[in-house]
């Protein structure tokens, strides 16, 4: 049978023994989990033993490309890495959309599984059938950019995932970088690779991938590209990149500061960090992930003023403006860029640490942290504090050594009631504040998602930065993404409104399918182009899948697989002890925030105030929509069996998890 899209190879690399082998993916596994993220999650069930130490050789890194990765489909460069987070012990994903996935696929592998730990620093080199662990002693101690450049020099045309010294020092608030500008590996993947003394993964691939029906694929793709090019907002997207979203962040979302007490004044935000300053101060060359129509990455250089001449790379720059600009109040776009460069080079996760620093300053102001804790340093929301603490975090010393453990570790180390001021879900900072944006899917998913706070799988940023879209918009969304009729009735009840708990389930299923197919954007920016396709988003995915792979598929089948993967992800985390008690809305969401100077409370999308009890009811709805046990917030045995996971249900029952 002619099958396209899949190479059907899993590459296993054991760093402890140096063993390298490939295994075939069975058609059964493909049918059940589709590929990419889906198959990786199934592999994780066997490979990640419950209760392991994330920084031990036992923690595998499972990287998955999907059947559409490396094919001429919009956004077909997506990979997901799965591992146990060093930061909070959750089992979740790190996403990246650069060239790495395409090259891995073209080298002949759907999945890459790295286990064990090496004694000496090594890097993994993959070039088609040539797979080798090479000495990395010349790279150890070097930063992300230096390491990448050396490896490009040694291996022409390669794609590189690596990290800087903070990962080597096993700092938990770290992240890896793909080809200098794509962050991948939330929750401390750099520390996990550091613990394995695996400095980098280098991949070259020239075998390519087979496509069953290229003509049909063209027929489906071209109208979507055409529509995107005709979009009236196209010019703005090309000119500003992600800074086109700046307005939404500061006016609608309202970038928070002073540890979630207020939003940054709009005028101040524009003046210091806005699109005009961005265009004026920085020399910009935009960079895109494979086949992406957004190009969210920038190669930037400071043209004038402080740090003039500094050159660096950045992904989604407007988000960095929010974190370093608003949260840490560093004072200028030049300083934001300086700190972005520092974080990228050392591989300190900018999102994790800016939230932790914001919190530490608050603790200092509350008198919980004193000069004794800070080594004599006066803490404030400013550039000096931020730069100093980032450096300490990267070096794993002083107060930085405590903050670098993440919220869970730092709360334990500091004590003294500091948790009262910590805003996080499952130990990860929240990126969206539900009080400023209202409780939409983005914020709800921060509470229920496996990784904890921050952005969800496939950018569950929906409805992104809006406060007043009509219900008809959400109905069209649901129709486009194949939400079944019975679910529609539950979501839109009463018909004039939508239930955020229930809608989140379907947004997650949509993102999960994209991740299994190996397409999409980490921030969900590409889905809108598919969403508007004449046949609707999900049917378009199905048609693309059929043209590429030659395998049969339907919308119902995709939804079934998506739901199955979601259940299994929850099961992985249930085994680690996560359940309803961890899906906790941050306390601060039930206090007022000063949004553009006005006291604002948590509201639903329709402007009705929400209490914790209301939110708990929405949580009931979420679990109910999932078909899970509402009390525990985990899949029931019946649901797993219904979803074709009999073997898993049996195993869980035998081990006392169900």
């Amino acid at each position: 049978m002619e099958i396209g899209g899949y190479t059907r190879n899993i590459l296993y690399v054991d760093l402890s023994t140096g063993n390298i082998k490939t295994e075939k993916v069975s058609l059964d596994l493909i049918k059940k989990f589709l590929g990419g993220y889906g198959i990786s999650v199934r592999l994780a069930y066997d490979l990640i033993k419950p209760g392991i130490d994330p920084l031990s050789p036992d923690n595998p890194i499972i990287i998955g490309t999907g059947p559409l990765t490396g094919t001429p489909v919009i956004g077909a460069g997506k990979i997901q890495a799965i591992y146990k987070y060093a930061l909070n012990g959750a089992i979740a994903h790190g996403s990246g959309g650069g060239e790495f996935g395409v090259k891995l696929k073209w080298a002949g592998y759907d999945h890459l599984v790295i286990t064990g730990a090496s004694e000496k620093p090594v890097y993994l080199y993959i070039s088609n059938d040539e797979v080798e662990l090479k000495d990395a002693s010349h790279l150890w101690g070097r930063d992300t950019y230096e390491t990448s450049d050396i490896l490009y020099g040694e291996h022409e045309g390669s794609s590189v995932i690596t990290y800087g010294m903070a990962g080597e020092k096993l700092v938990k608030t770290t992240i890896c970088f793909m080809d200098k500008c794509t962050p991948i590996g939330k929750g401390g993947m750099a520390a996990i690779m550091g613990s394995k003394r695996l400095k980098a993964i280098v991949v070259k691939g020239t075998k390519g991938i087979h496509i069953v029906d290229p003509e049909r694929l063209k027929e489906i793709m071209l109208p979507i590209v055409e529509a995107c090019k005709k979009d009236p907002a196209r010019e703005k997207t090309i000119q500003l990149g992600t800074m086109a979203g700046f307005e939404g962040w500061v006016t609608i979302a309202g970038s928070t500061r002073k540890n979630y007490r207020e939003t940054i004044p709009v005028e101040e935000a524009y003046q210091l960090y806005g699109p005009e300053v961005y265009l004026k101060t920085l020399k910009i060359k935009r960079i895109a992930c494979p086949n992406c129509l957004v190009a969210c990455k920038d190669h930037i250089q400071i043209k004038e003023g402080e740090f003039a001449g500094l050159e660096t790379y950045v992904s989604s720059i407007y988000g960095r403006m929010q974190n370093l600009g608003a949260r840490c109040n560093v004072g200028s776009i030049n300083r934001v860029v300086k700190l972005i460069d520092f974080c990228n080079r050392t591989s300190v996760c900018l999102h994790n640490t800016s939230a932790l620093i914001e919190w530490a300053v608050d603790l200092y102001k509350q008198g919980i942290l004193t000069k004794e804790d800070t080594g004599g340093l006066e803490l404030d929301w400013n550039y000096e504090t931020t730069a100093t603490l980032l450096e300490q975090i990267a070096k794993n010393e002083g107060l930085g050594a405590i903050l670098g453990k993440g919220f869970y570790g730092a709360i334990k180390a500091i004590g003294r009631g500091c948790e009262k001021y910590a805003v996080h879900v499952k130990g990860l900072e929240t990126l969206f504040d539900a009080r400023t944006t209202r409780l939409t899917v983005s914020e709800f998913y921060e509470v229920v998602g496996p990784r904890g706070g921050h952005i969800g799988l496939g950018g569950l940023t929906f409805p992104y930065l809006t406060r007043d879209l009509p219900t008809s918009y959400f109905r069209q969304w649901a129709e486009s993404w194949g939400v079944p009729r019975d679910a529609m009735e539950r979501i839109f009840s009463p018909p004039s409104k939508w239930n955020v708990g229930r809608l989140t389930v379907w947004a997650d299923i949509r993102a999960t399918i994209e991740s299994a197919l190996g397409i999409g954007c980490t921030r969900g920016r590409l889905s809108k182009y598919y969403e508007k396709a004449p046949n609707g988003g999900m049917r378009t995915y199905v048609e693309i899948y059929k043209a590429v792979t030659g395998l049969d598929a339907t919308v119902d089948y995709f939804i079934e697989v998506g739901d199955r993967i979601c259940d299994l992800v929850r099961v992985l985390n249930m085994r680690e002890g996560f359940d309803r008690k961890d899906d906790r809305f941050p306390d601060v969401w039930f206090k007022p925030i000063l949004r553009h100077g006005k006291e604002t409370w948590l509201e639903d999308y329709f402007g009705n105030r929400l209490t914790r009890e209301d939110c708990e009811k929405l949580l009931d709805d979420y679990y109910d929509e999932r078909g899970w046990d509402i009390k525990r917030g985990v899949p029931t045995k019946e649901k797993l069996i219904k979803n074709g996971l009999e073997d898993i249900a049996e195993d869980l029952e035998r081990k006392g998890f169900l």
Partner: protein
Amino acid sequence: MQRKMLIVDYEKCVGCGFCEMACAIQQGKTVSSTKSMIGLVRFRDVGIIFPMVCQQCLKPLCADSCPTGALSRNEETGAMVVDPDLCIACKMCTVACPLAGIFVDFEVGHAVKCNLCNGDPLCVKVCGYGALTYTTLDEAIIRLKKEAVKKLEETIKKIVF
């Protein structure tokens, strides 16, 4: 009717590589950069990305260097095309071409190059950034002049204000 040409504006290229992958499926059923007639050259250390593709030279060195006369111009599209029956895969054309716009595909056994998709290039259709355009000389000149004026305007603003 004026003949159209494929124009590359590397400053607008963001390196998404959609052109490369799309081109590959115009040639067959395998997607790979080695099957693509257009190729992105990345200088990662300095951050420059350059889409390289045959420019259909008016005085084509590929044809001059070909000992069997396998390269000729398609008068309708203006593209230089390879006759697979005449090509002996000696690779002289690949040496002669100043733009690396032609190479030998060992799997098919002859030289391959961009044929402008017979006058309807797919790479241009999938480029979302205006880095690739397929246009007549007239239109190209007008566009270039417009862009030059815009740059001048910026310069004048700097001087006057």
